[in-house]
């Protein structure tokens, strides 16, 4: 440990080391530690009127968490959120894996840049505006319905926003980049000769992907899935704008709690959501047999 600091000071100088320590420290304490601790503290306190705070009623309690397990509706919404987020993640993976492979190993030169640009351009617009765009596309008199009617596939407009569909669609669209880039990054370093070698040894394309590409891209897939899942489970805009009462998201429950001034209940639910995301991440790591270290590379 002594050597570590000695070497750091030799390489970066005292000012350099101090700068890194202070910036990282400030970021860790003010951006991560304090907000999370405040939330955690809130979640273990009952909702009190202002005059009761600090008084005899201001005690630690598990009440806010117990409420969750006794409220069937909230539990249902919670599990529905998990399930829907898994669907979003799966659909995004199914769409993004081929895109990432195409970008990393098939396309060359200018094509790569063009496709990349195509992927990034929608992100120049604010997420909310993109969701509004989907609202317009999927509206009763929107482009989608008009197109389907024009093609004679349907006679009357479909209410796309009645179920979960619109939310899943909108989210998948919104998070494609977060799935494409981690996978693309890993795949890019895969030696093209390995694909040729496998092909040369008689492997079909399906098997080349199963045996060579997917095992290699595992860290990227794990990162992409984790990010997409967390974003999907944690978003409030998409379900708000594209959803219906039947596609209520757990984040909306949290949001309502905060809006109704029950911050303590909201904090407890937010903590539960965070726990869920952490658990999901570890499941992903387990499934893909990837270490935490590889994940951050």
């Amino acid at each position, binding site marked *: 440990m002594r050597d570590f600091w000695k070497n750091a000071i030799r390489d970066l100088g005292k000012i350099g080391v101090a700068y890194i320590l202070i910036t990282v420290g400030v970021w860790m304490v003010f951006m991560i530690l304090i907000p999370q601790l405040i939330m955690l503290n809130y979640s273990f306190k009952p909702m009190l009127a202002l005059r009761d705070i600090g008084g005899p009623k201001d005690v630690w309690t598990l009440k806010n968490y117990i409420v969750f397990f006794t409220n069937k509706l909230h539990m249902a919404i919670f599990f529905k959120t998990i399930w829907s987020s898994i669907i979003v993640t799966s659909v995004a993976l199914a769409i993004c894996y081929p895109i990432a492979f195409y970008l990393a190993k098939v396309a060359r030169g200018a094509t790569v840049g063009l496709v990349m640009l195509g992927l990034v351009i929608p992100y120049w617009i604010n997420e909310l505006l993109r969701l509004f765009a989907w609202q317009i596309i999927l509206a009763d008199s929107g482009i989608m319905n008009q197109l389907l009617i024009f093609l004679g596939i349907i006679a009357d407009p479909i209410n796309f926003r009645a179920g979960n569909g619109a939310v899943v669609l909108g989210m998948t669209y919104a998070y494609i980049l977060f799935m494409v880039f981690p996978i693309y990054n890993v795949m890019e370093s895969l030696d093209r*000769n390995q694909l*040729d070698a*496998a*092909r*040369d*040894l*008689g*492997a*079909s394309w399906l098997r080349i992907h199963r045996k*060579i590409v997917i095992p290699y891209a595992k860290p990227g897939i794990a990162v992409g899935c984790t990010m997409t899942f967390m974003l999907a489970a944690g978003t409030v805009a998409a379900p708000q704008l594209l959803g219906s009462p039947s596609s209520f998201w757990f984040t909306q429950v949290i949001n309502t709690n905060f809006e109704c001034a029950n911050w303590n209940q909201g904090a407890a639910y937010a903590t539960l959501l965070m726990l869920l995301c952490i658990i999901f991440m570890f499941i992903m790591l387990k499934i893909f047999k990837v270490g935490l270290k590889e994940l951050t590379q």
Partner: protein
Amino acid sequence: MGQDVNIADVSMRFGDFYAARDINVHIEAGEFFSFLGPSGCGKTTLLRLVSGFMDPTKGQIKIGGKDMIGIGSNNRPTAMIFQNLALFPLMTVTQNIGFGLEVRGVPKAERIKKVEELIELVDLRGAGNRKVSELSGGQMQRVAIARALAVSPAVLLLDEPLSALDLKLRHHMRAELRNIQRRTGVTFIYITHDQTEALTMSDRVGVMSIGKLEQVAEPDVVYNNPATAFVASFVGETNRFQGTISGIDGEYAVLNTASGSFSCKNPQHLSQGEEATIFIRPETVFMAEESTASNLLTCGIHNLSFEGAYAVVTIKNEQGQLLTMRLNNDGTAPRVKAGDNVKVTFNRENAFVLKNGDSTSA
């Protein structure tokens, strides 16, 4: 067992660039054949055409008499060893070698037996469960060979597989490759820019310049009787003089150069007045015993480097051109030192005149 490969009128064009142009060569079954050429001459392209990673713009490739155009690399009786080996890093040695068998649906018991045989063949006993990243360069080489041989190819394609190895290991692997080729009887097509590699291992060598096959012949023929100026200058060392042919004497020609007139073989049957270059190998130049000999050059010794079995002597003639000669340390050559003036000569049987090519200098 090996099969023959017939490459007929094959051209490969990338945009305006011809990586291979009108290539014609028939490689016999069980032959060790090398394509030798400088980097960028299109030899790798040729190999990829045979392996089926791409099809030629024009021409025909037949393996064992069967037309291969349109057949993918996974369905050709070939296996390739890549320059960077392209071993599968996440798999063990056994899994690497067994990959081709696994994808062909060979039952597990049979697969294990075959892999064990191959591990034996390439001398990798005990390394079966190691990750390929834990292996040394030479061991990785062996895994690559075993992996390619596992699918019992009729033709093994090798793309400069020894270039990453150190000199000693390279020498060893050359002998090993040759050995494996003899034992298995598989047709080997070897790509290299290293002439020693090509000459020592091959039954026949095809020398390539940019996109063009210049000569196909046995190694000694390529060395002693190069068909073109490119081959002469690319394979082995040569001393060269440019000039004009001034006389023909049967199989021999007389070339007038700035350094004098020389008599030598005329394999291309060039006629009087043609511009040409004479090529003289360093080991055929010797000290003239009498100053009346023909093909005489008067030179000063520029530099002398003693290598043990022989000495490489750089000499400078009166026109200031540097030549190299190689004196065998067999007690016959007189002792010389830098600065001495000497007369050297060569026999007309040992030198040849060839038409100036577009790419004489290699």
